[in-house]
């Protein structure tokens, strides 16, 4: 059902946990739908993501999507990270079953939501997030 890469990230998720006093925190999903992702970012003066952690409630692919997304943005600048697409997450995972694609969407949105939080707190504008509204990311149990 799942690729080797998905199972590897599910079994040994990278960057699990929280960051105290994080520079940006993003949370998407809700318990009703069966998945919630929360991403914490530590961003330095040069706008580089120094550290990233996640907490996820959800199925195997939700955990794997969060794990790989954190790997993909760690060490990147916020301007690069904002370009992380769900498609890139799916590709990096070696594919996801069709009913699980929404997990990759959640991962993309969790990253965006955390970056938006950072931008708001620091009065910054991140290209690609000018018109971002966190409430648009409310997923209504779409699979």
């Amino acid at each position, binding site marked *: 059902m799942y690729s080797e890469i998905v199972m590897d990230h599910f079994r040994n998720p990278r960057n699990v946990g929280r960051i105290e006093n994080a520079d940006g925190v993003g949370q998407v999903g809700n318990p009703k739908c069966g998945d919630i992702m929360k991403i914490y970012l530590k961003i330095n003066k040069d706008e580089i993501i120094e550290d990233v952690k996640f907490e996820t*409630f959800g199925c195997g692919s939700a955990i794997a999507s969060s794990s790989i997304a954190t790997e993909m943005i760690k060490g990147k600048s916020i301007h690069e990270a904002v370009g992380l697409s769900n498609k890139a997450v799916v590709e990096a995972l070696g594919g996801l079953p069709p009913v699980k694609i929404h997990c990759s969407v959640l991962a993309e949105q969790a990253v965006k939501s955390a970056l938006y939080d950072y931008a708001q707190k620091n009065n910054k504008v991140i290209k690609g997030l000018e018109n971002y509204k966190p409430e648009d990311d409310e997923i209504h149990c779409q*699979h």
Partner: protein
Amino acid sequence: MSKKLYLDNAATTRVKREVLDEMRQYFDELYGNPSSQLYELGRKSKQAIEKARKTLADFINADEKEIYFTAGGTESDNWALKGVAFANFNKGKNHIITTKIEHHAILHTCEYLEKFGVETTYLDVDRYGLVDLEQLKESIRPETMLISVMYANNEIGTIQPIEEIGKIAKEHGILFHVDAVQAFGSIRIDVNKLNIDLMSMSAHKLGGPKGIGGMYIRKGTRIDNFIHGGGQERGRRAGTEGVQNIVGFGKAVEIASRNLDERAERLTALRNRLVEGIKNNIPDVVLNGHPTRRLPNNVNFSFKYVEGESILLLLDMEGISASSGSACTSGSLDPSHVLLATGLDHGTAHGSIRFTLSEEITEEDIDYTVETMKNIIAKLRAMSPIKNDEDLKKN
């Protein structure tokens, strides 16, 4: 990890060795068509079917003429509902009473019949999954033709007050169908004592083969045929009989009836050990289903703040097969309709796991399962955002 523990016996069971041995000769030695009565090979097949029919009939205190073989529990459920509906439509009867926690073989058949003008009342259940007899009585109309209630629920194991429902049905002259697929073989069922008119049974839940089921139809019940064709099953269910499967079904029932009470007692003790083990070792859990009125082999828990599919994947890595009512495991949008009907919130329903035991399971297996679950739940909760968030917990 070499350990293999199959704890999904409500999904299906291993075919028993004795059953397989009995079936084998009907593939390549006694392969005659039971309708070919003019030579011995055909007669032997027919005799084998009748022997199995007698075993089933004796087991539920019915007459042999009241037992029909079908392709499985789903076909039996379809036959009961559609057969009764089509036979009673033009008699001014169009109302069926069933429950919100039936198997989809019942619920989707009711939905289908509604397109033809059938009206269905879906009874609520309490937090344990029990139907309310008062609500049942209030739901009865002059047009009610059928009450269909499952004997025991496949997900949470709750056993319904079948005898009381049978009495109510009889008092009102309404047909009573029981989907006994999960209960059959683990509980003693007397169709006369319980006033059951129609009953669905299946072989593969009790060590028999897949693809074979049974239907009890009380003599004189007004019900149409469902599968049309040849004159098999006394003209009521067409299609060349799956003789080897019927033989296997008969054998499985024979074995089940041998030591039913001792087996139930042993399984109940194992079940309680698992329930207590989980309750005492893992915080924030909810036992789904009734604490005592439940199938001897069924355990169903919700583990708060974690999701069922993740648990199943980790269990599989430790060699344990179980199942979940989480939406993520079914490909549908909502978690189990059964759990939601018992009043569980979505989040908690997503974290449900069902373990269904078999005779092969030992106390050591149960303890291993508890220990494994303890580690898995701790691991998943360590990465759950809900665990430490009071706002999310309220959702």
